[in-house]
């Protein structure tokens, strides 16, 4: 039941407790308590609207920055990751296996903005060895949502009997 509840909330967090209880064949009290437990455990980390900013006029620019860094003795990558994630331009930080160490997603008002952020604030950090910036041109799918409506608006089923 727990995983199915999480999957349902991930699909649409606006389902009411009653609807969730009906779908999972249990009571609203059980659902309420379970959600509260998930929240306390940090398994449900938040409820936010998925906004397709590309449709908003004057929207921000997004980039993926590949950072190579030197890990610190005892602290590994945690210290530099914490430093990087504290910038308000930074929306996501992931430790990666492969050619670089940290994948950093940033948001800025313009390409210039992001370029200045990388040059003036990110690159000068002591542990950073190199930064390679990739600007995002179009988001096709994000958070499991088809942002271009390639699939969601078209039902391929056409048969009539």
């Amino acid at each position, binding site marked *: 039941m727990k995983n199915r509840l999480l999957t349902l909330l991930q*699909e649409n967090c606006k*389902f009411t407790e009653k609807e969730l209880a009906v*779908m999972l064949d249990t009571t609203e009290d059980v659902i309420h308590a379970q959600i509260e437990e998930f929240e306390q455990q940090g398994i449900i980390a938040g409820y936010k609207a998925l906004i397709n900013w590309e449709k908003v006029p004057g929207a921000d620019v997004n980039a993926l920055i590949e950072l190579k860094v030197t890990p610190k003795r005892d602290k590994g990558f945690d210290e530099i990751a914490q430093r990087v994630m504290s910038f308000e331009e930074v929306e996501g930080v992931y430790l990666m296996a492969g050619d670089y160490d940290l994948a950093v997603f940033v948001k800025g008002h313009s390409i210039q903005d992001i370029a200045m952020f990388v040059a003036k604030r990110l690159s000068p950090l002591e542990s950073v060895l190199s930064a390679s910036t990739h600007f995002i041109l179009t988001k096709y799918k994000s958070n499991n949502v088809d942002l271009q409506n390639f699939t969601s608006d078209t*039902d391929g089923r056409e*048969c*009539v009997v």
Partner: protein
Amino acid sequence: MNYDRFLNSKITSTKPSGIRKFFDIANEMDNVISLSIGEPDFQTPWHIREQGINSLEMGKTWYTPNRGLSALCMEICRYFERRFGVSYRSDTDVLVTVGGSEAIDCALRCMVGEGDEVLIPQPSFVCYEPLTAMTGAAPVIIETKAENEFRLTPEEIEEKVTDKTKLLILPYPNNPTGGSMRKEDYEAIAPVIEKYDLMVLSDEIYAELSYGEQPPVSFASIKGMQERTIVVSGFSKAYAMTGWRLGYALGPKDILAQMIKLHQYAIMSAPTTAQYAAIEALRNGDSDIKHMREQYDMRRRLIVSSFNDMGLSCFEPRGAFYVFPCIKSTGMTSEEFATKLLMTKHVAVVPGNAFGESGEGFIRVSYSYSLNHIKEALDRIKAFITEIKDNANDRSGA
């Protein structure tokens, strides 16, 4: 040129399917949200598709034996044994067809003709009545009732049976009502079938989409009924394989032998690629069915509870992916309700009378859609119902 003289009056006098009309209107409109489609929204599981692709890469592009690939016939028999506890011989009792529809047509044409009567419970899928009429036999309609959850009772059979009655069609789990015959319901009608010496065409295409504690039951598993039953089933609904066009019939070898003869002349053999994919489905597809059934089940609960909350009474369907709420409380006919809902709220459902006169006063709502899609549609239907009630109150107040 006037072609009337060249057309068979049996086909020209057949009414087109009542479902069609609503699709045609809905297709012209913007922002329409449909709950009218009668096929799974899932795509065929990848491992099954892969075996179809694999067979093409291996160059398996010829006809198969008329009755179907022997490996597939064997898998069908194994499946039927493990799922329903009924044994069939794969070399004589199985026919692989182009969807369940071909199996229904083939069985009817092999068993009935001029002077015979066929009992057809309604509401039910739109094909039985015209396909029966096409053979020259007379369709005799049994109107099942909402208070019985649209199950068939022995009394209802006895009311309509005559000395011309040869065949009874059992359309369960039922499209459009979602009604299902439990083991005890089947056992109750078996003595009547024996008494009047009837054969049964049991369309069990939705059997895998059965919900609740009780496992699905095949009519052939009822004591003494296997020898009187042609079971029709297929891959479309259970494995989301509608486009592959693959079904099958199981039954006594003397009847199957005639069906194979007709199938051989009319069809030759079912699609080869689909047959290879179907072998994979039967061997390794149980977990896919379980996953899809769980998804349908959640939607079913949501939709039934929502309709009842709206005041459109709706019994809990135990099978298929349809609910059949009663709309009589709105004072509208099924067609009026469906048309008005489509025009004002852009939600497409199918009027219940498209499945027989006894479906009047109901609408068929398919839950073969994503939860978000269903939630949006339900919100619109709820707004529609609220407006109707407010209007009625205004009128009675004035």
